[in-house]
C-alpha cells in the first residue's frame, strides 16, 4: 500500500494538546491497521475511515487518562469492532482470488515467476476459505505482528485459545494449499 494512496488523517488530532504519543502510534500502526481492515473485506475508503475513527477514539481514551497498557491491541480491537459494525459479511470476501496482474511483484520478476506466484496465492486463497472466521481473524492479526496476548485482547478470547487457533489455522493452510 503506497504512501500516496493514504491521505493523512491527522489534522483533527493536531489541534489538541498531548498528541505526540498518538502521532507516533499513528505513523507506526496506520499501515498495519489499514492492511488488516482491507483484508477483513473493507474497501480502501472504508478502511481509512475506520482507522481515522480508531485514532480519534484513542485520542479521547488517552485524554481521559485511559489505560496505556497494550495500546496496539486496544487500537486493533477498536478498529476490528468498527469494521464488524460496518460490514457483517466481510468474512466472505477474504479468501477471494486476486484478479489483478500482480503489480506488487518487482519489475524484475519474470513472467514465469508471476504465474507461479499467482498460482500460489490462488491455492492459498482457496485454503483460506476453509478456515473459520476466528481462525482467519487470528491469522490476520498475527500477520500484522500482534502477539498472542494482543490478539486475545482484540478478539476478546484467552491467549491460550489464540495459540490453539493459530496453530490449527496454520496446519489447515499447510495441508490444503501445499505452497
Amino acid at each position, binding site marked *: *500500500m*503506497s504512501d500516496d*494512496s493514504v491521505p493523512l488523517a491527522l489534522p483533527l488530532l493536531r489541534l489538541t494538546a498531548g498528541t505526540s504519543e498518538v502521532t507516533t502510534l499513528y505513523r507506526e500502526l496506520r499501515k498495519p491497521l*489499514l*492492511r*488488516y481492515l*482491507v*483484508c477483513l473485506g473493507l*474497501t*480502501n*475508503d472504508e478502511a481509512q475511515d475506520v482507522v481515522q475513527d480508531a485514532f480519534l477514539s484513542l485520542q479521547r481514551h488517552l485524554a481521559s487518562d485511559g489505560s496505556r497498557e497494550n495500546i496496539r491491541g486496544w487500537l486493533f480491537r477498536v478498529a476490528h469492532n468498527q469494521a464488524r459494525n460496518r460490514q457483517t459479511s466481510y468474512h466472505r470476501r*477474504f479468501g477471494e482470488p*486476486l*484478479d*489483478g496482474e*500482480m*503489480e*506488487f511483484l518487482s519489475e524484475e520478476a519474470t513472467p514465469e515467476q508471476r504465474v507461479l506466484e499467482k498460482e*500460489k*496465492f490462488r491455492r*492459498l*486463497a482457496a485454503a*483460506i476459505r476453509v478456515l473459520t472466521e476466528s481462525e482467519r481473524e487470528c*491469522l*490476520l492479526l*498475527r*500477520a*500484522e505482528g500482534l*502477539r*498472542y496476548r494482543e490478539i486475545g485482547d482484540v478478539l476478546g478470547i484467552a491467549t491460550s485459545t489464540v*495459540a*490453539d487457533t*493459530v*496453530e490449527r489455522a*496454520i*496446519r489447515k*493452510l*499447510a495441508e490444503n*494449499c501445499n*505452497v
Partner: protein
Amino acid sequence: MCDVQVKLVAWLDGELSPEEAARVQRHVEQCRDCAGRLGAYEVVSKTFVGYCEAMAVEKTRSRLRRRVPVLAGAVVAAGVMVLVFPRMRISPPPIAPPTIATVSVPVTVSAPAPVLMPAAVEIAPRKTIHKRHVVAPIKEQSVEWQPTETAVQIAIPAEAMFAPGAMPRGMNFIAELSIAPDGSVKQVRLRQ
C-alpha cells in the same frame, strides 16, 4: 504424533517460555517429520503475509483504476470548455494610472478660502456651492482631476450640529467636499 507438534507455530512466533522453546528446538533437530512441518508452516506464514499485502495493494490499485476515468473525463471537459469558449477567459480589468489621468471634469467649482462664518449664521450650502455642469464640447475647460483635492468648504456653526450648551459658543466646523467627475459629492470631511 509428536506432542510438540501443537507447539511448532507458537515456537515460530516466539510465544513459548524459554524452557518450552528449548525443548521444541531439541526435538525439531532430531525429528525429521516435525522439521518438515516447521518448514511448511514457515512458508505458509510468509505466503499468508504476502497475500495480505497483495490484497491491500490490489484494492488500492483497483480504487485508483476506478478514479482514472473520472479524472480523465474532467480534464477532457475542461479542455473542451477552453476551446469552445476562448473569449470567456477572465482577465483582470486594466488599471488606470491613479494621478496622471486627465479627466474632463464637468464641474467647475469655485473653491473659496475657508470662510469662518460668524456664530448663529444659518447654513446655506446651496448658496456656497457653485456647480456648473459642463458638457463634453467645452474641452478647454478641462482641468486635471485630483480626487483628494477639496473642492468646497462649508463653515457650519457648532450650534447647528449639537444641542445648545454642548459645545463652546462661537465654535465652527468646516465641511470639505470633494466632487467626483459626474458632479456628485465624492467625499465629505469634517474638521474643526
